């Protein structure tokens, strides 16, 4: 045995030894044929710009992703900072920027987790997405003007507001950058979608001066919800179509 401290039942050890003894190794010819296939695929991949991006080091990929997030939020804010900036609570704005910024950073970091690291535990993945939804929901419920329950019909009306499209527009580049640099497993798509929603929401917090609870819920929170649920549904549909 590999670890002498781990003692096995003798009968089971015999079963396991028999199974191991029957294992065969690939012949050198098989290995060389497989190597030729791999070298062919790699030669092709090395010419692709997408593979070039994905084969940057994880530190570089993460730094580029963070810069992309900063650029998106910066450009979004530069299109016009909210006109009521001097009137709203500084504490509320600080909480919004710090919480959304931290969640965005964490999402971008985890969306580019490399495959040579053990997988992220499902609770951590779902916890991050849940926390992002919860934070944006709470910021919509407790706006700069304080807590107020939104009216459902008004909230639905606000879903057609330009703010929703503005948020989606600014979130999309974050999603694309993260997917472009991602070489990891398919779960990265969900976290990338979450990061995109957070970026869109953060841009709206810095840009939009409307504080009605219906607007915050229908046009701001929905950005994150649409990215997470919408893109996840699209990915699931594509996976199903591909069989």
């Amino acid at each position, binding site marked *: *045995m590999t670890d002498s401290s781990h003692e096995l039942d003798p009968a089971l050890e015999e079963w396991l030894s028999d*199974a191991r003894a029957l294992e065969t*190794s*690939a012949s050198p010819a098989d*290995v060389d044929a497989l190597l030729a296939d791999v070298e062919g695929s790699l030669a092709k991949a090395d010419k692709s710009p997408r593979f070039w991006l994905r084969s*940057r080091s994880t530190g570089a990929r993460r730094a580029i992703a963070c810069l992309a997030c900063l650029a998106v939020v910066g450009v979004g804010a530069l299109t016009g900072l909210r006109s009521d900036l001097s009137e709203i609570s500084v504490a509320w704005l600080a909480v919004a920027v710090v919480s959304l910024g931290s969640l965005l950073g964490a999402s971008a970091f985890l969306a580019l987790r490399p*495959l040579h690291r*053990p997988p992220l535990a499902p609770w951590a993945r779902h916890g991050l997405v849940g926390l992002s939804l919860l934070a944006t929901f709470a910021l919509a419920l407790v706006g700069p003007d304080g807590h107020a329950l939104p009216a459902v019909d008004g909230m639905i009306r606000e879903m057609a507001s330009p703010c929703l499209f503005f948020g989606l527009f600014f979130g999309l580049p974050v999603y694309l950058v993260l997917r472009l640099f991602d070489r990891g497993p398919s779960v990265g798509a969900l976290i990338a979608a979450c990061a995109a929603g957070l970026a869109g929401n953060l841009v709206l917090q810095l840009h939009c001066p409307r504080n009605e609870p219906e607007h915050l819920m229908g046009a701001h929170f929905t950005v994150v919800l649409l990215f997470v649920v919408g893109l996840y549904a699209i990915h699931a549909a594509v996976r199903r179509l591909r069989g």
Partner: protein
Amino acid sequence: MDAPPSDGRTDEELMAAYVDGDHEAFRELFRRYAPVLLRLTVRHLRSEELAREVVQQTFFQVHAARRDFRLDRKLRPWVFTIAMNLVREHYRKKKRRKETDLDEAREPAAVIERGPLEQKERARLLRAALDRLPASQREVVELHWFEERPFVEVAAIVGSTEGAVRVRAHRAYKKLKELLDKELG
């Protein structure tokens, strides 16, 4: 088990050379690791074709991630983690694991004599029992017993602590024994 390395350099030295652009080092690494990875993935996927795909993908990922490899680390757990992640990804995509029916193998298991055929049947029964283990326990047995990796390395590959992996292994071996005892009546 595998052919001895034709190049005297260690895996880590070969990886360093490969990162520096020595393509022959990649070939040598492939020759060292492909047979081991094929065995590992065939055991999980029960299909040589799928295993070849996963091994190809593993080296594809090794190539993409070569700049991430830290030269003060061991290469084997690094490569094994990529392969195991790709196996998990395969199952995630398929949303199901290949089912193996223990009942199908019940009759041959009753054979007591130890001829070559009986050894094969025992191995088949053991595989079926392994398939019944939770994935987290099964991968520990695969790496610890079949690949003869020490617990500390298995822990690095599956992303857990050595203690937790030992507990998983203990439970897995106990469950395996129970399943096999049950099959043999």
